[in-house]
């Protein structure tokens, strides 16, 4: 690798690595034994996962009474976490599909990883509404329309059911998209491994891919079609999640700004999470010249942009509440900012609106410690955003006699910790079992990899 000249900075992949060296670099984590750092990280995430598993077992055994959910606040942590994790997933699809449609080549280095994070985030998210039903093993019976003895069907006019379809479609399509991208890489791995078992596994997973151009032609078209579908799909998912709130008549929920506001927030938090994880990945696996500083800077710009969109939405909510002249609306928003949960509101507001403004400075955008801390705070803020929306509105609804203060319990906390444990465990296992960077895609954007007099 010593022969690569890193001094020359190029837009997508720094230097001009030979293609075979790329293979080597990207498949190195798969060929080498995990080091002590990996095991420490895994121990931490598995501990978090175990805490969550204990909380979950207790919740299932003793019932959901272990949670802080009370009478007006029936949604509590499970729904807050659900919306949070679904949002995290959105950045992955945005990077892999929307940036693909916009022909943003810088996405290639991070697309595979971001897509993986989408899938893990959606898995984590899906757990919450299902356990919120109380008896998750019966959830399929409540959620899916199937011919049954009672000849009852699910309610297709309910946003909660739309969610079932949106989230499961989102998961399936993201997974297929991800797998399609992996096929050529599996073939490359298959042809370079000398391990018998790995060879069998990669032969099966690559389906016998031959890098044939007759295939590439249809493959690229499929990739385009999938990107074309994934783009409206990802917008629809958080739109439908926002309908869970917006279609209800509760003050503070019943607003038309919710769909775009939720999508912007999802991209915002998702980018922050992807950026956080990538900082580690590029360092640990020496991918600095594939996941370049330029790429990170571009991500920070998107965080800045979506952060401002979110800030605009926050202000607009207040304006509309006042402008509509509806008393309960005005009350709901005054209560958010200055009521019992003012602290949550101001954590949300400062983390999401004020702090990302630091990204106006190029120095901050290109400083790893700064961007890391800012992105962590963004995710803290975005979690509190969902908390503020869900809890403040429910705890102060139309009927003052039923008002109550929501206080999370230890079980709630353990489930939240467990969700992070699950997500990061999956991410860690992913880094050691699959190529975290798309080998074929990166090769295609290395300098000199396309014909000079090509007719493009």
């Amino acid at each position: 690798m010593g022969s690569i000249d890193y001094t020359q900075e190029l837009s997508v992949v720094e230097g001009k690595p030979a293609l075979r060296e790329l293979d080597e670099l990207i498949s190195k984590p798969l060929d080498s034994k995990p080091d002590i750092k990996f095991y420490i990280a895994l121990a931490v995430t598995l501990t978090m996962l175990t805490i969550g598993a204990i909380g979950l077992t207790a919740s299932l055994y003793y019932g959901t009474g272990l949670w802080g959910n009370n009478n007006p606040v029936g949604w509590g942590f499970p729904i807050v976490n659900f919306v949070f994790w679904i949002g995290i997933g959105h950045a992955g699809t945005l990077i892999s599909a929307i940036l693909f449609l916009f022909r943003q080549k810088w996405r290639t280095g991070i697309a595979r990883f971001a897509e993986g994070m989408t899938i893990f985030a959606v898995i984590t998210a899906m757990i919450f509404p299902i356990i919120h039903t109380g008896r998750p093993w019966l959830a399929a019976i409540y959620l899916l329309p199937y011919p049954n003895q009672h000849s009852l069907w699910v309610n297709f006019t309910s946003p909660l059911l739309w969610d079932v379809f949106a989230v499961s479609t989102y998961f399936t399509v993201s997974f297929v998209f991800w797998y399609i991208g992996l096929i050529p890489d599996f073939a490359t791995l298959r042809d370079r491994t000398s391990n018998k078992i790995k060879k069998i596994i990669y032969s099966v997973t690559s389906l016998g891919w031959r890098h044939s151009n007759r295939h590439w032609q249809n493959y690229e078209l499929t990739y385009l079609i999938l990107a074309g579908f994934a783009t409206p799909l990802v917008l629809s998912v958080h739109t439908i999640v926002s309908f869970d709130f917006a279609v209800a008549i509760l003050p503070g929920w019943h607003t038309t700004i919710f769909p775009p506001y939720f999508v912007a927030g999802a991209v915002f938090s998702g980018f922050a999470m992807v950026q956080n994880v990538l900082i580690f990945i590029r360092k640990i696996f020496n991918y600095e010249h594939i996941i370049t500083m330029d790429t990170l800077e571009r991500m920070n710009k998107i965080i800045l942009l979506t952060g401002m969109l979110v800030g605009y939405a926050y202000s607009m909510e207040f304006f509309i509440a006042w402008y509509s002249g509806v008393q309960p609306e005005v009350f709901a928003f005054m209560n958010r900012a200055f009521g019992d949960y003012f602290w949550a509101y101001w954590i949300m507001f400062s983390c999401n609106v004020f702090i990302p403004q630091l990204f106006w400075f190029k120095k901050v955008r290109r400083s790893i410690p700064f961007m890391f801390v800012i992105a962590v705070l963004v995710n803290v803020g975005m979690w509190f955003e969902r908390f503020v929306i869900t809890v403040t509105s429910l705890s102060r609804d139309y009927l003052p006699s039923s008002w109550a203060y929501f206080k999370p319990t230890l079980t709630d906390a353990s489930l939240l910790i467990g969700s992070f444990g699950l997500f990061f465990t999956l991410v860690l296992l992913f880094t050691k079992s699959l190529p975290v960077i798309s080998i074929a895609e990166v090769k295609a954007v290395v300098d000199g990899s396309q014909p000079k007099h090509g007719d493009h």
Partner: protein
Amino acid sequence: MSEKLFSYTALFNTPDEIIHAAKAVADKGYTKFDVNTPYPVHGMDSAMKLKTSKLGFVTLFAGLGGAALALLTMGWMMGIDYPNVIGGKPFFPLPAFIPITFELTVLVATLSTVAFLLFFFFKLPNNRHPLHDTNYMKNVSSDKYGVSIEAEDPKFNLEEVKSLFESLHASVIEPVYFDEEEVNYKPKIADGKFLAFLAAVAIFVSVSAYTHLNYLLYIVPFNWMAEQGKLVPQSTNDIFTNGSSMQTPVEGSVARGFIPYAFKDKPDEAGKFLVNPLIPNEQNLAVGKNKFNIYCSPCHGYLAEGDSRLRGQFPNPPSLHSEKVRGWSDGRIYHVIVEGQNVMPSYSSQLSREERWAVVNYIRVLQRSLNAKESDL
């Protein structure tokens, strides 16, 4: 081992060379050839003279199919099979159907596109293709660009192909052979390993279904809340001093709907003063017959003749067609139902007041039918 020539292959080092080579091969009129590159090379489709892909049509029709499927299913379920007014919406609320229609369109379209791509267009999975496990494949999946002209091409001629590749300055030129047996191998169902696999699956499924249905469903929390953390009448309880969940009512408390019975232990007065409030009619006789058959007939028989069905496990009662009972007033029979008589227990907790009178009326019908008067005939 019957080795046959599959194709002649050439490897190139740069994308420019491969585009040039692909053009040359296509220009020579070869049709059964392929270009293998580690990533899609721009301009290769036109260099190889490939037709545009038809895959888009699959997506289009699958997507339309998905949309139609969603709309028709939802419309049928909510409007025809089980019409239900929800939130004042019509039976076919199109706006409320749009989200799911959209999701299903996307789902069906993408899954069909990918399935068609992999299984129909590419005929994958195919790990028996002759090009697999060759030096050629190992190179094109990493950093070389290759052309392979198949021996089955009608214009294939070993010498010509060789010299063509040489004139293109290929870095490596080599033939690829294949083993006919291996390529044409068809998996058999009666294969030992496969049957063992099937047996393993069958055992696994049966055992898990058995444990699921016979054990899993009976443990907390899967047992439909059979055990609940609440107080049941017979359970112990720390709150009350006597340690029991069920407490005796405060003295003098009266159960809801309770009316005291004025003729306790006074059968004759009951016979004298109690008046049957029911005029026999079809409805209360039907009630009476029903209750009599349930509560009285096991001992007294369906026709009240004293033919007990208890086979001597309980003393046989006398017939209710006796002179004595026929001579009793309605109130006197009513009294027997309320208080019982000797070994016969009270039926006041099983039968409401109205039902007791209905049973009395029914007994009267039975008596009349066995001892009809002249005028009835």
